[in-house]
């Protein structure tokens, strides 16, 4: 019996030792991993708090589609890996499986699919896909906690807060242009709060709320970054940048989309003045003009910002370096994404790849035709000297830096955009299907420009402020003023273009400005909103063209040019003004917290 007992004891001790430390009951249940980083950790040091502010910056609008580190459907993922430019007359998406070709061009976008069409938002602006709301939430968390950080100099604390408020303003202004008035959020929500009532503000009230934030806080920002700060912190918001955003916002607000005798399309949202001011108010143009000129005055009386110019540069080089170089003196707000160190990284250089190899962002011939001859005359003008047999010479230098045209210098050789050339092997392939390749941002599309390149998105450049003033002033005064002429001609002179003809009518001057904006700001998310705010349905529904270029079999320097039709977009034949604004996802409407769908959707 004793032996048995001993055997037992030995067995039991062996068995229980199988578990290194025998614990019973609740003690046995694993402890959760320590949540060692809490809100208090983040806001106990300036280092961590700054990192948190950086995560607010991360959600700023970034116009180049990079797919985002988290894949499609997250921040910086555009319309199904396409960019908004391909919704306009300037670019065409030819990639069969891209969001635009698959859904948007087919007219298959509707509120039920708006938020998520097979992984992509099919509308110009996804209500949640752009993650602007995430940026706003981060800012409020920052604002509500930054006071806990010890030992921050009061002025610097003010500046940090102003930066967060400015990001909130930018996120709202970005959405304003695509939705009209939206619910106004004033703190970081916690679970358990009553979420049943969040009506949209009227367009005017929403705009005013954003302006109020800019007015209240931009003064706490430095006018420009000091040269010592620039190297490390270029990209942080400045007073000049926020004043530029204010001018752009007020220009949009004053434009006929909202500011007109009748709404662009009737519907509940228009009746409730969420997407219409209820009538025409000329003074809104004055507000915009004043905001722009205040900035111009300040710019011209200080020495921090000016159109980029480097001694010895050609006009082309000035234009190219002006938008692409970090620290460029004409960029008022530069936004970024992460720095991609990988070589041909799918996510990091997606914009470049999509635009070139995949053909999701092919410049149209209609765009190329917008560029004047260097003598300032349109190519349709018989006196311009335009030669249809040799169409790409003596044009506005910005053409060559926006669009890669056949025969231009490229990768140390000349670009071969004729069918069978190295840039366009066959006429059937998506790459450069319209006969042109994107040059802006992509540049030479080689290792030097695509790998380990430090890129940025110029959210707003100084040129635009001048054009904003010229436009708003023209509308307020019923025609161009000398100051309006000065502003537009400054922009043209920077690239060596002659002044616009004197004595233009209000309408002609307006057209000159919109054309100037189209050729100056390609791929900078300007054109789409120019077309929508001016309700230019004729531009949005006109058929678009590409160019088939054939090399002569006898003389390789000779080419023939055959204009082709781009594949159609649904709305070209079935136009509805509803396209001016994006729709809200139906689910979001159905949550019944007060979101009213935009007209027509």
């Amino acid at each position, binding site marked *: *019996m004793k032996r*048995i007992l001993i055997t037992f004891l030995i*067995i*039991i001790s062996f*068995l*229980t030792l*199988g*578990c290194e430390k025998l614990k*019973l*009951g609740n003690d*046995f*249940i*694993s402890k*959760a*991993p320590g*949540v060692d*980083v*809490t809100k208090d*950790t*983040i806001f106990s040091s300036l280092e*961590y*708090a700054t*990192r*948190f502010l*950086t*995560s607010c910056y*991360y959600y700023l609008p970034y116009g180049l589609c990079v797919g985002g*580190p988290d894949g499609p459907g997250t921040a910086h993922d555009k319309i199904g890996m396409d960019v908004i430019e391909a919704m306009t007359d300037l670019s065409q998406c030819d990639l069969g*499986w891209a969001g635009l070709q*698959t859904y948007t061009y*087919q*007219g298959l976008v*509707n509120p*039920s*699919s708006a938020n998520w069409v*097979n992984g992509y938002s099919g509308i110009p602006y996804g209500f*949640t896909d752009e*993650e602007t*709301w995430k940026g706003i939430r*981060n800012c409020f968390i920052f604002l509500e906690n930054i006071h806990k950080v010890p030992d921050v100099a009061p002025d610097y604390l003010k500046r940090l807060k102003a930066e967060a408020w400015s990001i909130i303003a930018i996120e709202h202004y970005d959405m304003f242009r695509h939705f009209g008035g939206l*619910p106004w959020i004033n703190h970081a929500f916690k*679970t358990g709060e009553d979420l049943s009532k969040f009506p949209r503000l009227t367009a005017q009230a929403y705009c005013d709320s954003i302006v109020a934030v800019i007015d209240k806080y931009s003064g706490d920002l430095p006018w420009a970054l000091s040269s010592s700060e620039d*190297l*490390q912190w*270029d*990209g*942080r918001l400045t007073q000049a940048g926020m004043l530029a955003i204010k001018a752009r916002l007020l220009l949009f607000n004053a434009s006929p989309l909202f500011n007109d005798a009748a709404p662009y399309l009737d519907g509940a949202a228009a009746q409730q003045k969420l997407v219409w001011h209820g009538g025409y108010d000329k003074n809104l143009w004055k507000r915009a003009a004043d905001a722009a000129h205040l900035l111009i005055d300040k710019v011209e009386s200080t020495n921090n910002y000016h159109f980029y110019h480097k001694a010895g540069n050609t006009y082309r080089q000035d234009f190219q370096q002006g938008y692409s170089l*970090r*620290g460029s003196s004409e960029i008022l707000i530069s936004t*970024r*994404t*992460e*720095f991609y160190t990988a070589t041909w990284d799918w996510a990091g250089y997606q914009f470049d790849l999509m635009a070139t190899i995949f053909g999701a962002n092919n410049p149209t011939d209609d765009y190329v035709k917008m560029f004047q001859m260097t003598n300032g005359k349109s190519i349709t003008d018989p006196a311009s000297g335009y030669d249809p047999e040799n169409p790409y010479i003596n044009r506005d230098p910005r053409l060559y830096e926006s669009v890669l045209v056949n025969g231009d210098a490229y990768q140390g050789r000349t670009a071969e955009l004729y069918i069978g050339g190295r840039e366009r092997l066959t006429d059937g392939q998506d790459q450069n299907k319209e006969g042109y390749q994107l040059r802006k941002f992509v540049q030479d599309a080689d290792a030097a420009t695509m790998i380990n390149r*430090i890129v940025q998105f110029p959210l707003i450049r100084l040129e635009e402020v001048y054009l904003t003033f010229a436009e708003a002033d023209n509308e307020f005064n019923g025609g161009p003023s000398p100051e309006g002429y000065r502003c537009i001609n400054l922009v043209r002179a920077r690239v060596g273009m002659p002044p616009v003809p004197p004595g233009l009518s209000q309408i002609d001057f307006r057209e000159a400005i919109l054309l100037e904006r189209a050729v100056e700001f390609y791929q900078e998310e300007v054109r789409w909103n120019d077309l929508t705010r001016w309700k230019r349905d004729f531009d949005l529904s006109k058929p678009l063209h590409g160019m088939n270029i054939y090399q002569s079999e006898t003389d390789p320097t000779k080419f023939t040019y055959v204009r082709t039709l781009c594949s159609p977009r*649904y709305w070209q034949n*079935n136009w509805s003004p509803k396209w001016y604004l994006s729709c809200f996802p139906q*689910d979001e409407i*159905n*949550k019944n917290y007060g*979101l009213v769908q935009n007209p027509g959707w």
Partner: protein
Amino acid sequence: MKNEKMKTYLLRSHLLLAKFLLAGIFLCFQLSASAQQRTISGTVTGPGNVPSTGVTVLVKGTSIGTLTDLNGKFTLSIPVSAKILSFTFVGMVPQEFEIGSRSVFDVSLTESAVLIDEVVVVGYGTQKKISVTGAVTSVGGDQIVKAPTASITNNLTGRLPGLTTVQYSGQPGNDEPNFMFVRGIGTLSSSNSVPLMLVDGVERTFGQMDPNEVQSITILKDASATAVYGIRGANGVIIVTTKRGTEGKPQISFTSSVGVQIPKQYMLSTDSYTYAIDHNKAQLNDDPNDTPLFSPFIINAFKTNRYPLVFSNVDWYDVWVKKAALQTQHNLNISGGTKLLKYFFSVGYLNQDGLGKTYDSPHSYNYGYQRFNYRGNIDLDLTSTTRFSLSAGYRSQQQQTPGGSASDFMTVTQDDPFHGQIYQGKAIVTDQTYIPITSGFYAITAMGYNSGYKRIITDIMNLDLGVTQKLDFITPGLTWRLKVSNNNTFATTKTQSYQGPTYAPIFKCDADPTAVGDSSVVFRKSGSDGVLSYGESVSKSRNWYAETALNYERRFGPHNITGLVLYNESQIFYPQVFADIPSSYVGLAARGTYDYKSKYLLELNIGYNGSENFAPGKRFGFFPAVSAGWVMTEEKFLKDNLPFIEYMKLRASYGIVGNDRLGNNRFLYLPDSYNSNSGPGYSFGINIPQDALMASEGNIGNPNVTWEKSRKQDYGIDWTFLGGKLGLTADYFYEYRDNILATRQTVPSFLSISLPAENIGKVQNSGYEAEIRWKSKAGAFNYNITANISYAHNKIIYMDEVLTPWDYHNQTGKSVNAVFGYVFDGFWTADQIAHISDYPNANYDPKPGDARWKDMNKDGVIDGQDQAVIGYPNYPEYVGSLSGEIDYKGFSFNMQWTGAAHVSRNIWTAVDAFQSTQNGSESVYAHEESWTPETAATATLPRLSFAGKANNITPTSIFMIKDASYIRLKSVEISYSFGDAALKRLGITQMRVSLSGYDVLTFSKWKKYFDPEIETDFNNVIRYPNVEVWNLGLNVTF
């Protein structure tokens, strides 16, 4: 005092042992002193003409009796006055004979439906079947071995009413069902509905066990049966019990089988000629002025096969997939024992060849699977009251796949037929100069021909140690037990990849300008002869389990009482999430049963256990279940008036069980978290090639989160009639689960919070199972027929869904995983298009043969809100089976038909002609079923078109969601058992040869195009075909 007690105990136990031995001796050696004796003898056989050993042969009313020997023979000396001879054996219908002057009794026993002593496996123990009041179903190992499947899991549908399985793939080593549910789904997702699976009481998978090791598989269905598993009992429990030795001479059983696996219907593609014609047709359907991609010259080349290298025409499926592959299985096991030691040893081997063709490749890259199963189960009775048990299971397996991945079949299915071929050992890829398009898929490198292979070698060791101590000295009927288990797994994945060269066939005249008009073919090589590279990765797991229990079992006159109290702990050392923190459970379980004269039965089950997923204070749950039974046939009024009812029991149970799972998430209660370095970073500065670091908000916590709470009711009846010939079991169940873990959907998106799981969902699930059995004999024929049906239907009551005003569009109120899509309203006709304004605006310009969708909400627009339920979920609501068996002398024939209904399958790939790339393969299905003006009345797919795809094929609709109901001949077996004297002289007790088949016949609506269990989906997951198996088997018992 203690010593005294111990002595008493020792004495008692010795006395008991002595009594036992005496009884045995008494039975075996007939100690009768009577003078008027005569001798009778005979042979007793069981089902299948197998000799029955250990059958009690007794002269009724006396203690004169014996047991049959190993050959089923007995000899008995009886008084001449003896009247009736009875034969009884556990699991058999007792038989009685008048003795008269007969002296030879050759008796054949049949299995009994209800037996007094039959036990079934229940949670943490066994119970007499007669006293079970919960819903429990089991199948014996002898049934499981009848179908020649590599994984026993594929053999359970229909055999265990209440269990549903769906098998997506027949890939060797990877053919276990994609899902297995007990009574369907009761929570909001299929992944959280996985039942608890136990082998010998310890959580383990059993799909790759040798079927010869299995004693029984039991499913516990209602709350009464699963309450002891408490927080993890809500999804049902599957318990596999391994075989153990019984007292007797060593019995050696050798089984060997060789079989062929034959692929079942697969999604095939059209040939080059058909493809080219259809591709042109699709183009012209869109734009009659378009230039067809395939020129008449190419089409003619395809048709005449004049240049088979340049204009090739291959069926990739045929190129890569064999007609059949071998499968062999061997098992040797020995069992037996003495009073002291009982043992069961088993060694099994399975080899499954893959269906891939390998040609003359230097590397064997075919699919394949080899498996060795070892098991040793030993019970050692140290004393008459102490049992020491060891169960050791070891498995070593190797699974091989081609270098790519399991998605190779995607390439094979989606590559176009003129893209290349294998020619003289060369991987040919067609040159694009000659053929205008080529799919982006490369079947030529699929199946490893040009890419190498991957092997996963896995070793799994299970070790259970246990002691059982009878504590009769404390109080009679009390037992204590302790068990500790370890499961260790070690897996190595070896990848040998290789990129071989490809060759493009070129006409010589094109390759060499001087060879004008020479149409012979030369090859242009690309890539170089690669070498096999080697890569390796390892993974491991270690799980620990321990339980200790007190068990009580005693009869006081008519009162029968049992009780159980058990404590257990388990730990997974390398969980998938938070791998550094072991994952653990603790639990306390208790059961009490009471019956009065086996007539009125009452049972109480309780689980009290804790899960690490919830916060202290919220983690321990109390799960009670009560059940009762009434054996009506024990009542005099029934016995007297309805004597044909042999047995009848009514059962009812109610209880609460839980579920703590939300995917693989752990510690659901974690507080709000922040991350101080959260990536991806932001590139401030002018020329700094690195990012500024980011800190960010993480998940929002929910400290109140707790388990899902399921309330289950079950009402059942067990019935046998006519001396056990007819049996019936039926159960109705109703489950209401609330507190289901889910994330809120109705909060405004602008909150931008990643919300935590909350206990918000509510699902109701109800259904029934019914089984009817008939067992009888006609002359020398013994036969039985069993039919059963299971039904489970669930409904989402609440899921915090964003509700639309349209009921048809809301998931709430529908089944979990119900398929939503556009509702087909017919194909557009030219006439309708002429009056298009009469139809809702659908944002596209239809052409005849395009799909027209129904405007469900009648708002004049076809959009996402018109999506309604268009199909059943991918798991069947109905599962049924019909099986039968006939024995005649040595012959035996059995088969089992199973069927499933109310189930849908997505066959997206087969529907999408030319694939999303618009230049991939065209399925035969799309070719034959697409709309043309001629087939307008019968077509099941829209017209061939590229422009119309986004409207026709891309939206989820009945075009891709197919009714996947089926009836299959799941298993069939014919066998013959030899039992003659010649064999016996060789020491062979029995020899059996059999021919069996698995999944050999299928009836389903879409059978012509695909197997009803195969699934493809938007992610283009296309799997290895399912297989049917024909098998020749030999079983020898010594």
